[in-house]
């Protein structure tokens, strides 16, 4: 190791300041530049800040993003969020390690080129399973495409990666709109943009290209919308590059060469690309007419996602043109703070972060506190592995977030506000920062004296809990504290603080513009309005959806999602992530509202909705969530820290065929203990996935006790066999990471059961479906 450049620490301190509240930003800066936190840097930081080194380590070791060991030149993050997990992220992870020859217990290959890490959710659930190498995202991976991915990355890393921004041409032109949100970019919009650019140049098309906000059909990305001047837009998905030119010529005028500018980098979005193009869904068809699209949009109502896909998320003029900031103006003009709160009360809006606390009551509590100072914090620490609503909202509707926060600040009397964004969402951070900058530039925030800043989290699920979020903003370990006192009484730096979820703030401008009553007309009497969900998993059409409260789970899965693909049966829907529960197919007619979901043992949660089919094992899923909660437990309360670990031991045993009589009863007892004896929401809800799975899928647990996994998922309980459909193509033998299959061309292959680790790669690569699970 060469000597570490410690001067960075000094520069970081002069940039951020040396206060305790700057500790996280300081550590993030060091981590980003040095890729780990070297002891010398921590020592220097300790001297400059006066905070003990062990304490700094204590804070840093609380957040997943920080490393204490040097890492390879490139970091491969394998997403193990729920959607990726059920779509095979573990075999992908194993295959990457195998491909790079990483030794057991190590995380970096011998040459020091790659470090591989499992992470909980990159927020690209519709690309599952997804992998991020540095800032490149690859989606829809399988063990047999890993080699290609690494090759592609190496080429990308070698070659010049251009950055471009397409400038507007002159005149009244048509438009070609392309979504530039993380998942579309990962799906190939970067590539498509490149092809689009080429097609426009080559064909002399007269049109302007606009990057737009999420078109919310993430499953079908890349989406291209061709909008000729003066006529209705036509959407295309999965358009092959070679056909783009022809399609454009059909709709748009050509007039020689377009005046195109390529200027400096304003966005690093193009550096993402997807490795695997999916099968085109509806090539050439105008999808608006296709039944799938009609169904996808059918039951949806767009409040939070209003005007989706219509304009560049950072185009302030477009946002204002569509009624943006009208609500804020009204709130600053005619409406008193009391009247604003009254309007929110009339809307019946409840917190969209999960617990569903009445928003108006919360605002009132903050407003009524003594003293002059107030803070507003937008909670964008979306930690549910399998949810990406907050990311999409921040990336696609940054001005809505800002407007909602500004209205809230006006109502509660705050003049400082923060957007707390999860560290795994670099684009959301960038977009929010840029949007704030542009608002400040034109005095949209300055007039009221509202100081708005982005605070980056560093990877901790528990920081979604408001008291933990405050602790982390104060530069401490994100340990929740017992309420009361509520943040509304004593929050950030002991100042009354309003903390709400991103989606809650996004709803606010609409309510103030359209009226609380209009919002209350949507949804059910107890749960008014709409709710945004991230639909992913085993569903034909995934993406960001927004539905009025009161629709059924079945409507979401069948109508919007197009049902379970590949002829499989729906088994269950996971709602609310690690804190939520599983809803079995038999209860799919339950409606989506706070009370109904709580009634069936699930919770609304922040809005992750992962669909499972018959190939998913409910023991393994429960184990997955509990493992998550155990790793994310802040470690304070005995019941949560130790109880979840003991429960995990039992579930590990069940999945590995070591179950013992009485295990299920013990599991239920512990679940009740952990729930009752934990202080914060994480611990209290951590057993939910286990409890609901045990309740609805008891037979599957009993089968595991007998050493059998009905879904054929748990590796220790299954064996793989090749039947006589085998054509001897040797693909399985080539891909087997354990050398358990001998290469016998044109002959029936056999699996050596001793050597086989039942990773299932052979099953995935077999073109003849000849690998059976017993």
């Amino acid at each position, binding site marked *: 190791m060469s000597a570490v450049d410690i001067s960075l620490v000094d520069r970081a301190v002069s940039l951020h300041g040396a206060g305790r509240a700057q500790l996280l930003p300081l550590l993030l800066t060091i981590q980003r530049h040095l890729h780990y936190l070297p*002891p010398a840097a*921590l*020592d220097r930081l*300790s001297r400059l800040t006066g905070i*003990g*080194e*062990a*304490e*700094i*380590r*204590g804070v840093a*070791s*609380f957040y997943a993003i920080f490393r204490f060991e040097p890492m390879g030149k490139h970091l491969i993050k394998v997403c193990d969020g729920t959607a990726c997990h059920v779509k095979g992220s573990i075999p992908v992870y194993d295959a990457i390690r195998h491909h790079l020859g990483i030794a057991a217990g190590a995380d970096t290959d011998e040459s020091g080129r790659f470090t591989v890490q499992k992470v909980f959710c990159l927020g690209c659930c519709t690309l599952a399973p997804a992998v991020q190498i540095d800032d490149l995202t690859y989606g829809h991976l399988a063990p047999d495409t890993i080699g290609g991915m690494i090759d592609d990355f190496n080429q990308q890393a070698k070659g010049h990666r251009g950055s471009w921004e397409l400038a507007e041409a002159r005149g009244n032109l048509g438009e070609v709109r392309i979504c530039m949100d993380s998942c579309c970019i990962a799906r190939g919009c970067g590539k498509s943009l490149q092809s689009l650019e080429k097609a426009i140049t080559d064909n002399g098309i007269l049109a302007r290209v606009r990057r737009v906000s999420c078109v919310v059909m993430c499953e079908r990305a890349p989406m291209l919308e061709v909008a000729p001047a003066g006529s209705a837009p036509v959407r295309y998905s999965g358009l092959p590059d070679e056909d783009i030119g022809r399609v454009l010529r059909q709709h748009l005028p050509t007039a020689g060469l377009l005046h195109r500018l390529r200027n400096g980098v304003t966005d690093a979005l193009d550096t993402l690309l997807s490795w695997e193009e999916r099968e085109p869904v509806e090539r050439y068809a105008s999808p608006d007419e296709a039944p799938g699209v009609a169904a996808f949009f059918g039951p949806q109502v767009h409040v939070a996602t209003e005007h989706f896909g219509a304009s560049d998320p950072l185009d302030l003029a477009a946002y204002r043109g569509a009624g943006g900031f009208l609500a804020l103006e009204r709130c600053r003009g005619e409406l008193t703070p009391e009247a604003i709160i009254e309007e929110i009360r009339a809307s019946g809006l409840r917190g969209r972060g999960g617990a569903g606390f009445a928003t108006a009551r919360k605002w009132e509590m903050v407003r009524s506190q003594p003293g002059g100072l107030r803070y507003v914090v937008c909670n964008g620490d979306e930690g549910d592995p399998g949810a990406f609503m907050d990311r999409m909202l921040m990336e696609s509707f940054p001005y809505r977030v800002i407007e909602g926060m500004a209205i809230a600040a006006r109502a509660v009397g705050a003049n400082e506000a923060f957007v707390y964004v999860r560290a795994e969402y670099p684009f959301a951070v960038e977009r929010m920062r840029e949007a704030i900058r542009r608002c400040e530039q034109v005095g949209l925030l300055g007039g009221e004296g509202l100081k708005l800043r982005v605070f980056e989290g560093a990877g*901790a699920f528990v920081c979604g809990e408001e008291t933990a979020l405050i602790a982390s903003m104060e530069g401490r*370990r994100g340990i929740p504290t*017992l309420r*009361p*006192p509520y943040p509304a009484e004593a929050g950030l730096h002991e100042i009354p603080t309003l903390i709400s979820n991103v989606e809650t703030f996004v709803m606010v401008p609409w309510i103030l513009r359209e009226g609380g009553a209009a919002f209350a007309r949507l949804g059910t009497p107890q749960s008014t309005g709409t709710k945004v969900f991230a639909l992913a998993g085993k569903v034909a059409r995934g993406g960001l959806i927004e539905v009025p409260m009161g629709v059924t789970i079945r409507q979401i899965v069948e109508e919007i999602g197009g049902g379970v693909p590949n002829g499989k049966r729906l088994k269950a829907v996971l709602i609310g992530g690690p804190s939520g529960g599983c809803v079995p197919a038999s209860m799919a007619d339950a409606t989506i509202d706070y009370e109904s979901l709580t009634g069936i043992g699930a919770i609304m949660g922040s809005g992750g909705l992962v669909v499972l089919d018959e190939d998913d094992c409910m023991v393994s899923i429960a184990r997955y969530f509990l493992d998550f909660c*155990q*790793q*994310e*437990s*802040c*470690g*304070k*309360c*005995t*019941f949560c*820290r*130790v*109880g*979840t*670990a*003991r429960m995990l*031991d039992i579930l590990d045993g069940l999945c590995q065929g070591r179950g013992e009589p009485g295990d299920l009863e013990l599991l239920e007892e512990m679940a*009740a*203990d952990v*729930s*009752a*004896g934990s*202080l914060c929401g994480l611990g209290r809800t951590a057993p939910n996935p286990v409890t609901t799975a045990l309740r609805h899928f008891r037979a599957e647990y009993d089968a595991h006790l007998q050493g059998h996994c009905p879904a054929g998922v748990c590796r220790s309980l299954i064996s793989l066999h090749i039947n006589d459909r085998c054509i001897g193509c040797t693909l399985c033998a080539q891909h087997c990471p354990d050398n358990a299959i001998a290469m016998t061309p044109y002959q029936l292959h056999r699996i050596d059961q001793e050597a086989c680790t039942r990773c299932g790669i052979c099953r995935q690569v077999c073109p003849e479906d000849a690998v059976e699970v017993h």
Partner: protein
Amino acid sequence: MANLTIDGRPIEIAAGETILSAASRAGISIPTLCWIDGCAASGSCMVCAVKVAGAPRYLPACTARAESGMALESDTDEVAAMRRKALEYLLGDHLGECVAMCRRACPAGLDIPLLMSHGAARRWDEAAALVRAQLPLAGVLGRVCHAPCEKVCRRGALDDPVAIRSIEHFAAERDVAASPSERRFDETIAVVGSGAAGLAAAWRLLQLGYGCILYDAAEALGESLRVQYGEAELPHAILAAELARVVAMGLEVRLGVAVGHDLSWQEITQPMTIVADGDRDDIPEVESIVRVRAAGKLVQQVAAGLDAAMIVHRSLAHDQSAHDVAFRSMLRRLDDGEMLEFIKGCNPASTSVEAPLSASQACAEASRCGQCDCTVAASCQLRVLSARYEARQRHPRSSDARYERRTTLPHMYFLPGKCILCGQCVRVAQEAGEPLDLGIQGRGMRTTVGGSNARASLATALACIAICPTGALTMRPETNGD
């Protein structure tokens, strides 16, 4: 006036106070483990759980704010069960042993770990005082005891057990003058039989402060011992010296007196008599006679005699001492890797010595002891409360919970396996303003207390050790002598 109820009792509360403080003012006792009076509460252990009436929800009394109108339960079976479970979860991961195996194996109950730590620090005067205070016939046992302690010594799983008996022998050889015991009780107790059991009973009675008359039909004291062991095994001069020590404590010896023949039982059974005289069948079945059926190895006979003396002591209602806490945490078998961790800071060499030891050999050998005993076994709240709530170590430990003995802190060892993460040491270190630099690190089951850069005065280290409720911080052996 704001009020809440605990178990139906209305209690006045002061603004901002905790449930624990309101309860204790009202005389309601709530157990605490991670909470320490006068210190900032961490509210992590949940042993002080109280239940919100009518809801399946528990609050830590030490940190939860007392709110007007609260209805709480503290003295119910349900709450007791919750407290027991909190303890059991902590115990499940507790890699510690309240009482060392050697000490549990010693029938006479010698505090072997203490003896070893004295020896390792060359505190031979203390070592000698200890064996003399805890063992009758220490010099005899040092030579002929069958040493069950050595058979269970953890060190034996790695190389050789610590040569405990030889060290005891060395300590007992030290010339400590025998002196008459202080008489504290009026009663004089008769003991019949001057074998190992009778002598041990007499020794313990004298030590406790009773008068004692020892009867034996034989003409010489300790005749059976002399017969049992040859001169080579147990030099007669040594035995004589040991017997003389017992006599010097104030023992009255009546030799050549066969009780039952020369003297009637009635004549000696006031107030009580201990009979340790073989398999006689002529002993009256009366409450005032405690019969010792001494059998087995020498040390077992000694133990039987000591026990008999304690029965007398309790029967006469003079026993004021606290009873041993019933709960004993057991440490699972450690693998070789863990054993190397366990003996960190100990003499790593295997044993090659045989009694009698030289002073340096005895010290080196005692330094091989890993000190399995818990240093705070008597005061540990985890232990006390586990006994009170009948907690058991029923949860299997995670296989990845490895035994560790961290040696990075100044003046002390840190045993993460005993830590309950209350953070009190971290707070003490911070308040001391010294760069002891402890911090809670990591997350989930990997949460631990760490220090990377530790520099601290002995006083701060001692304060940390003192505040630790479970003995997770212990003094380094070399610190003891400071």
